[in-house]
């Protein structure tokens, strides 16, 4: 009978189980520490092996080709999938260029890309970088959005994985001595360029229509600072990101422009939202009667070249800034090749993606070994003498691009079709036309 009572009333309470869990945890912990340490030993061993291998490689001389893998974390799906998928093509172009250059110079090194989708999500970016790092990769190009870069920062710093983001522009990531390198100029300069451009074009009372994310928020703030110091008045209006359509926002914008009697709209957007906003603005009489200015986000979308939107752009004389060194032969060559490959102009930050891959490749070569810290140090050296598709890539102490020149772009009609054109440049604080 005593067994019976034991069945109905479980004798073990919570405490013994917790204790058991604790003991199991301890055992697991010991085991894990052992594993970690043994993996360290094995890492040392493999380091030794590597050295032997390099020695052997040196002895065997030029017969073997060494292959380095560069990790890439791009938003192939999710909100930024449009640019992400085009960047993929750009990255492959850069890789081919890099490899063929190395082959031409008879360097027995080749590079390989592993592209992992991060879904434009912070947590997926972290798992993407972790997956790459666990496969022994030390350099990752990407992720795209600042929120994603922040999510991978802690892991990258601790494990010495170099993150090279081609498009993160958030001012809260200008952190010295970390493993984040950003090959794109701070928006502070571009905002200044855009503000000066708008002011020079006669705008005094503008509505800044910006996306409600880190990019838009920072850009609008910088723009407002510069524009007010010049003597203009800027009204900031933000719109939600990730919406499938912006017709309502445009309607609101129109009524606001009418209400405050603004003479220009400054649009700070990405490509899909920007093109959509312009597509709706063309039907609005108020918005067709003021000037428009734009950041680089919408540059390169095919939609802007469609006759109806292009006519609108001509009518409101839309001018935009974009980070590129004007009449840069490397960029012109790059853009032409990209167009022949895909049939369209390079998307936003394409040149930065291209340069990021090339820079990473050269930094690995200079470092001579596949190690995050060494590549990081080499990266600064390589970047200080590198002139690429996006111009001079010199980095400052925070690992961000130091100088960035900007082109002034618009859409104009050439032989009956519409094309993007750079009609001026912004360099060292002044605008030069032509």
């Amino acid at each position, binding site marked *: 009978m005593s*067994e*019976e009572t*034991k*069945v109905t009333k479980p004798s073990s309470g*919570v405490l013994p*189980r*917790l204790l058991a*869990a*604790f003991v199991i*945890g301890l055992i*697991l*912990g010991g085991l*894990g*520490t052992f*594993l*970690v340490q043994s*993996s360290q030993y094995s890492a040392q061993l493999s380091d030794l092996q590597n050295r032997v291998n390099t020695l052997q490689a040196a002895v065997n001389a030029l017969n073997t080709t060494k292959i380095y893998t560069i990790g890439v974390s791009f938003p*192939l*799906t999710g909100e930024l999938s449009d640019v992400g*998928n085009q960047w*993929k093509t750009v990255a492959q172009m850069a890789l081919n260029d890099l490899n063929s250059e190395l082959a031409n110079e008879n360097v027995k090194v080749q590079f*390989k*890309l*592993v*592209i*992992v*989708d991060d879904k434009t*999500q*912070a*947590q997926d970016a*972290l*798992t*993407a970088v*972790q*997956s790459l*790092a*666990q*496969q*022994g990769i030390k350099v990752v190009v990407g992720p795209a959005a*600042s*929120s994603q870069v*922040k*999510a991978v*920062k*802690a*892991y990258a*710093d*601790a*494990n010495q994985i170099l993150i090279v983001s081609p498009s993160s522009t958030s001012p*809260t*990531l*200008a*952190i*010295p001595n*970390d493993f984040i390198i950003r090959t794109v100029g701070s928006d502070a300069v571009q905002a200044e360029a855009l503000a000066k451009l708008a002011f020079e074009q006669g705008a005094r009372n503008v509505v800044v229509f910006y996306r*409600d*994310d*880190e990019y838009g*928020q920072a850009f609008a703030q910088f723009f407002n600072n510069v524009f007010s110091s010049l003597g203009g008045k800027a009204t900031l209006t933000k719109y*939600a990101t990730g919406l499938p359509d912006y017709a309502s926002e445009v309607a609101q914008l129109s009524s606001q422009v009418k209400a405050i009697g603004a003479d220009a709209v400054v649009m700070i957007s990405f490509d899909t939202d920007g093109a959509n906003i312009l597509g709706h603005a063309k039907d609005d009489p108020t918005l067709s009667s003021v000037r428009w200015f734009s950041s680089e986000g919408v540059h390169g979308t095919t939609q802007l070249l469609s006759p109806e939107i292009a006519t609108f752009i001509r009518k409101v004389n839309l001018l935009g800034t974009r980070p590129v060194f004007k009449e840069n032969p490397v960029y012109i060559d790059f853009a032409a090749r990209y167009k022949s490959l895909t049939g369209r102009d390079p998307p936003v930050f394409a040149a930065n993606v291209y340069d990021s891959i090339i820079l990473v490749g050269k930094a690995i070569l200079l470092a001579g070994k596949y190690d995050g810290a060494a590549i990081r140090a080499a990266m600064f050296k390589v970047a200080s003498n590198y002139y690429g598709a996006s111009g001079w890539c010199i980095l400052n102490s925070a690992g961000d691009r130091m100088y960035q020149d900007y082109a002034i772009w618009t859409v104009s009609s050439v032989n009956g079709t519409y094309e993007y054109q750079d009609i001026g440049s912004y360099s060292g604080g002044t605008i030069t036309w032509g």
Partner: protein
Amino acid sequence: MDVVGFLVSWITLFSIYSILSISLNLEAGYTGISNFGKAAFYGIGAFFAAVISLSAFLMLNGLSYPLYSLETIISMGTLSKQNPILSILIFLFTVVLAFFVSGIAGYMVSYPTLRVGPAFLGITVLSFGELLRIFLRNFQPTGGTYGLAGIPHPFAFIQDPAVKDFMFMLVTLVILAIMYIFSEKFVNSPYGRIMKSIREDEIASLCLGKDVPKIKAQVLFIGSGMAGVAGALLAYYMGSINPDIFVPSLTFEVWAMVILGGLANNKGALLGAGIITFLNRASVILNFTFQNLPIDVNYIRWMIVGLLIVASLLFKPEGLIPEDPKSSFIWNFVEEKEPISLKKRMEETSKKVKFYIKKVFDWFAMGGG
């Protein structure tokens, strides 16, 4: 390949998601509350932990930067390494408090939503989550769209990243174990049987004199609290959070985990979370093996994840581990099955053992033929 690193990172993620799926299982599996706002309570926990630990560190060091500013992120890099005991204390403190903060939020949300009736409870909580997310996006003190970064890792003082991650994994595992044991105890208690009775028939439970809305609210308190703990762990693990992490699709992912593993079964919740997080993490191996396919390998990866969810449901529509019939309240009524006593079971086992021993002896007796 770094197998240890992979396991550590996967198990950490698995533990966080398991806590979520166990909490959802308590609500949806055992009590029949279709909570589609899991992400909201997850987010509340994460933001609470981030805000408290960041401001605690800033305050203790006499700094007064805004929480999301660059200066905070930079100074946190050094501050978090200075005092191990403080880091761990703040971590434990926020994780425990996150339970109550999220739990109270869940309890409060339940008040109006339960009055609506269960059919629309799911969408009501989902809307609440979205409202919260959009609000946080526009709420500057917690960073707005910048989010919060530089959240001090509790083991930041450990130099070796592998050991650091391993310690964190251990902590999440221990918390998961506590949650698991707690919910197992909970659902097998008399209270758990009331929960199941509510799931099976609310009106009947009402007629039995159970205060159904109150019990539902209490379950939501516990479930949301557990989600809050998971959120706090996520915040410390990632070191940065922003409102857009806590989108409704995250909730659906947790639902898929629970359904896949089998509703009303905590083991199933673990299994579901394990399978989906493992698929997400391990399928990246495809990216390394298959390059230059005509279709991007990432798309194939996600397609396989979707297919596997459908396939496993087709294979076992009741989930991989269906609800244990013996512990089910309803089943006992229908089948009128007597639980087998220990004595009987032992007798049966000893009979079996004797049989096999005899067989072995026979085998030897036959000369091993």
